[in-house]
């Protein structure tokens, strides 16, 4: 069984006034079969956590470790991390003009699986996966994310999640900007990925509504660049009622 361990992770971003620390000691362990929700107000550093784990060059990890089955992910290149079994569903998927979705998916699957998928089974696999997410087949010929609506981009992130089947998936606000139907379709896609029980999910969200579709095992409140409280699903209910105010104030007091 796989394990993803984040240990005392500190990360900063370069600003005009020098480096600014955003992650201030994140500790979290996710095991295969578990889904952890990370909830927090805007600007708390949730997305930075996602990007730092994936290896975005904008964020500098200053100390700490991210271990995937004991291997230090932070020493790996971005693409090595993906091949090792990490996946980041992005909040704002990037448009890549001139690269078709079909070509992109096949290139990614070839890289992650270590060999090119057999063409005949691959075509069917992609077709079925697209149908599951209510994605029209014509998207295969379109450039990656180019001109896609917000909802279409998120469906394609979950499409990739299903096809690449990573050990651990970080979903960064995959629910934001989705209408009710799209949220249901996307959540079903995530649940199919979880169904094997051999994969772990780190679900980053601002809102509790996606948790009605994807039931978390653990809920963490993120404020001021670290986890300030952890609990079961009932913690999400409290956030739904009372918001983040209590945690933000406590964090500000601690910083002062």
């Amino acid at each position, binding site marked *: 069984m796989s394990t993803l361990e984040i240990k005392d992770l500190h990360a900063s971003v370069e600003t005009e006034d020098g480096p600014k620390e955003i992650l201030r000691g994140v500790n979290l362990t996710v095991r295969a079969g578990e889904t952890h929700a990370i909830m927090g107000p805007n600007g708390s550093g949730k997305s930075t956590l996602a990007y730092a784990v994936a290896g975005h060059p904008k964020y500098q990890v200053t100390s700490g470790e991210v271990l995937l089955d004991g291997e230090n992910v932070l020493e790996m290149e971005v*693409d090595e991390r*993906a091949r090792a079994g990490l996946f980041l569903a*992005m909040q704002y998927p990037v448009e890549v*003009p*001139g*690269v078709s979705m079909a070509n992109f998916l096949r*290139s*990614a699957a070839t890289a992650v699986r270590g060999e090119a998928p057999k063409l005949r089974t691959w075509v069917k696999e992609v077709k079925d996966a697209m149908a599951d997410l209510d994605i029209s087949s014509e998207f295969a010929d379109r450039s990656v994310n180019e001109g896609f609506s917000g909802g279409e981009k998120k469906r394609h992130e979950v499409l990739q999640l299903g096809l690449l089947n990573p050990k651990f998936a970080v979903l960064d606000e995959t629910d934001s900007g989705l209408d009710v139907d799209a949220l249901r379709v996307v959540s079903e896609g995530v649940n199919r990925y979880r169904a094997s029980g051999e994969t772990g999910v780190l679900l980053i969200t601002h809102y509790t509504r996606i948790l009605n579709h994807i039931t978390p095992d653990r809920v963490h409140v993120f404020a001021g660049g670290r986890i300030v409280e952890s609990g079961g699903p009932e913690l999400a209910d409290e956030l739904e009622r009372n918001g983040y105010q209590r945690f933000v104030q406590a964090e500000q007091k601690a910083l002062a």
Partner: protein
Amino acid sequence: MTSDVAGLAPELKGAKEGQGEVPIASAGERFQSFDVDAFEIPGGREENWRFTPLRRLKGLHDGTAAFDAKPAVSVTSGGRDASGLDGVTVETVARDDARLGEGGTPADRVAAAAWSAFAEATVVTLDGTPDPVTITVEGPGVGASAAGHLQVRTTPHTQATVVVEHKGSGALADNTEIVLADGSQLTLVVTEEWADDAVHAGAEHYLIGRDATLRATAVQLGGDLVRVTSTVRYAGPGGDAELLGVAFTDAGQHLEQRLLVDHAVANCRSNVLYKNALQSDSNDAAHVVWIGDVLIRAAAENTETFEFNRNLVLTEHARADSVPNLEIETGEIAGAGHASTTGRFDDEQLFYLRSRGIPEEQARRLVVRGFFGEILNKITLPELRERLEAAVEAELAITGA
């Protein structure tokens, strides 16, 4: 625009003809002549020469080029001599052939020098629906200079595909006339696949007949200095010209594209899209210049035109100059627009692809291939398209960009 330039300061001399250091007010007032001596010798600060490194032009512009060699021109189809093929007539004609000049008149000193110096011209006439024709123009060899002249013409309602390949060494100044008869359709690919020493200053003169369609793709890859000046005019209404271009410029290489689409006739269309990639593996700059002039004259009602230049900067030491100009003398048009973007390689795109496991080098190739693919994918000759795609891959291998 005043017709009297006397009394202007000396540095404005020649301004009226667009040869001076001050830009002319309208592309429609460009000076034109078949006579080289009618043009002043450019000094490098003139509007139409200011981007071109004249020192590297091998004297094509100032009378010092000897023009004592000839470009070797061959016309083939499917690898065989094309003369005698159905619908293809290949002629070598003397300077006094009445058809020469029909496509247009030189508008700069190098083009006029080529016109004044060429010994004989090649005229390829296409009739009916001939097989695709390849015209190979080979430079005169290292250290030599040559003046060339080529005319490609169609008969009414012809549908043809022509590839013009430039290769070899030396310095070549030439004029290429593309004359499309009424209702004809020409798909044209012009490649610049020169050796590293080569200098090519080419003037292309397009004349689009009534209801005729041109689908042109320019591919600039090789050469030390390549400067292609393309002018499109319409002989009647209903003409449609698509001018696509790709260029890949390396360290120390200068590639220049100067386009003028002159809409003087009603109900014509033009679409210009040039995409260039720049890379350098040394301190020598890779340089690309794109000048896109579109002129819609008062009579050209219901014109539809768009021009777009995109430059992709892959490394340090790269310079792209992009100057779109749109002049509109009538409000009665269907549409007109222009755009230009120059950007570095997009790190976010790279991150996205790599975050899906795709190795960095492959991710870069995907992005650059995608960048050029929009244009190369339209080349309908599979062998040529594959060869050009491979050439782009080979370019990428130079810097590992």
